[in-house]
């Protein structure tokens, strides 16, 4: 009985949708597109092609990962945060303190940094379950300020305003020594970014990821079809915090230094700007935004060392006033095939 009705329906699909069965349609959405492959090929080839810019590239990869972690909550679950640096900083200090006290192996350090940040994310996620966007902004901002002040007060542990000195990072997995030009650092950060990107990509294309999109779209209805929204939000917030912690750990390990800057409000705000520049909700916004942000910052500060922040601010005001939608709308028309291939929904 069931079988026969299924057969009927699939034959009907063929008559109405000759090109795509429902299953093929869903699977096609998750396929790798060539610009995605090209993006990562270029990123990895820069290890050999731009040996003089490895330090900058390393910063971009770390900022990209940090912005990606915000994209997970903002772009996919609709949770806005102005305090994500709390988790970045926690991971940075965790990696730094471990290295200082003898457990310097970078991969272990990263796992611990991510784990600790994830635990902090888990507990603070309960604070952002209710309320409006404004409430969330204030709560996340508040949490980050608390973390900053704790790190400042616990100077005996963190080094306070002077920063944590005496961090020595041994070779990765005992094999790859960090060098002064940053070749190892960039390779290491890029590999970590890539692996975490793969995981994030898998997650957003899963039933769990789809339920997040549904929550973002209409939380009321999501509840009435049985989605336990609170649990899903706790899960993604925890994951995003772990990602941020790993990004922080990477910064510590590749620069062998941590200071209170890792917990600065400016760091949270920068990452949010990166996401505004790159666009949220398609996973590449973080990495792409980070490229533009760093290049703009680098270029502007070379042109006008004293006033680069002015131009940065100017560019952002224009970006927001003209509307990123309109700019990308223009880009969409110009590069419509490319953008579509990146898997971004057409507007």
């Amino acid at each position, binding site marked *: 009985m069931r079988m026969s*009705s299924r057969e009927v329906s699939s034959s009907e699909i063929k008559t109405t949708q000759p090109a795509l069965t429902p*299953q093929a349609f869903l699977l096609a959405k*998750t396929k790798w597109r060539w610009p995605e492959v090209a993006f990562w090929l270029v990123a990895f080839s820069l290890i050999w092609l731009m040996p003089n810019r490895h330090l900058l590239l390393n910063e971009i990869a770390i900022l990209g990962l940090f912005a990606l972690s915000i994209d997970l909550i903002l772009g996919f679950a609709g949770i806005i945060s102005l305090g994500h640096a709390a988790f970045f900083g926690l991971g940075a200090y965790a990696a730094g303190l471990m290295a200082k006290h003898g457990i310097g192996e970078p991969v272990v350090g990263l796992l611990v940094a991510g784990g600790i940040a994830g635990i902090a994310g888990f507990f603070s996620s309960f604070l952002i379950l209710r309320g409006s966007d404004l409430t969330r902004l204030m709560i996340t901002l508040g949490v980050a300020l608390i973390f900053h002040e704790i790190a400042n007060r616990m100077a005996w542990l963190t080094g306070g305003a002077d920063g944590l000195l005496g961090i020595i990072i041994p070779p990765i997995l005992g094999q790859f020594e960090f060098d002064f030009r940053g070749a190892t650092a960039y390779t290491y950060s890029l590999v970590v970014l890539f692996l975490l990107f793969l995981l994030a990509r*898998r997650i957003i294309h899963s*039933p769990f990821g789809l339920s997040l999109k549904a929550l973002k779209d*209409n939380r009321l209805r999501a509840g009435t079809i*049985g989605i336990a929204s609170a649990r899903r939000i706790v899960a993604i917030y925890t994951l995003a915090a772990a990602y941020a912690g790993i990004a922080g750990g990477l910064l510590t390990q590749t620069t062998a230094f941590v200071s209170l800057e890792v917990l600065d409000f400016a760091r949270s705000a920068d990452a949010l700007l990166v996401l505004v520049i790159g666009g949220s909700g398609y996973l590449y916004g973080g990495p792409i935004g980070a490229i533009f942000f760093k290049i703009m910052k680098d270029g502007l500060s070379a042109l006008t060392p004293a006033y680069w922040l002015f131009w940065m601010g100017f560019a952002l005001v224009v970006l927001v006033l003209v509307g990123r939608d309109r700019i990308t709308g223009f880009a969409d028309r110009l590069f419509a095939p490319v953008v579509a291939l990146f898997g971004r929904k057409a507007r």
Partner: protein
Amino acid sequence: MSVLALETRGLSKSFGGFKANTDVSLKVQAGARHALIGPNGAGKTTFINLLTGVLPATAGSVWLQGEDVTTISPQGRVRRGMARTFQINQLFNELTPLETVGLAISERTGFGAQWWRRIGTNSAVVDEAAELLMRMRLGDVMLRQTKVLPYGKQRLLEISLALACQPSLLLLDEPAAGVPEDERHEILDIVTALPESVTVLLIEHDMELVFTFADRISVLVQGMLFAEGSVEEISNDPRVKAVYLGEEAHV
């Protein structure tokens, strides 16, 4: 006697000093086509929110298939077989109908929290979703974004989404509200063709739909149950007429 599909005992809800629902005791038989009617502001929406657990009751209890669900979360009530539609569309505008219905099916079958599996690899979920959408006359639009669908199709998706939860009790909140005349029959056909196994409580304003569809009617006025009976009894009840005529006189 079989177990009641739904029962409320002395259900009340106040917002500050305002009593939206007062002592509502309603019994809905299993398999019934029960309609809850009442003029604007009678407290129908509050009542449905109490049933689904969106609002906590001030007093009284809600029983689903003989089980007290008063303190159970909205999600818990969905898992126990209560699904609803909304008077104003509450859909996922960015998703396609296929994804929308697939979500509810995944959730019901326990795959909703899987994060390691790609969407579409679970063919049981996809097949069930496609089959349901075919049946609901959404087959030709199931791969399009919900927000671009005509309003009538969106109303059908509202009902499909509730049915995807395989409810034993379906709460329909004005299913044909705002649907243009020429698309209306499609909604009515679907509603009348709902399987016997599903008990339906229809919250409605439109008397024509109620009289063609329902086998039992309860009338809610000013937050209180005002009358209850068969279609015959209610349509001939002078007090009910007075309430409705009185209201129409205002309009």
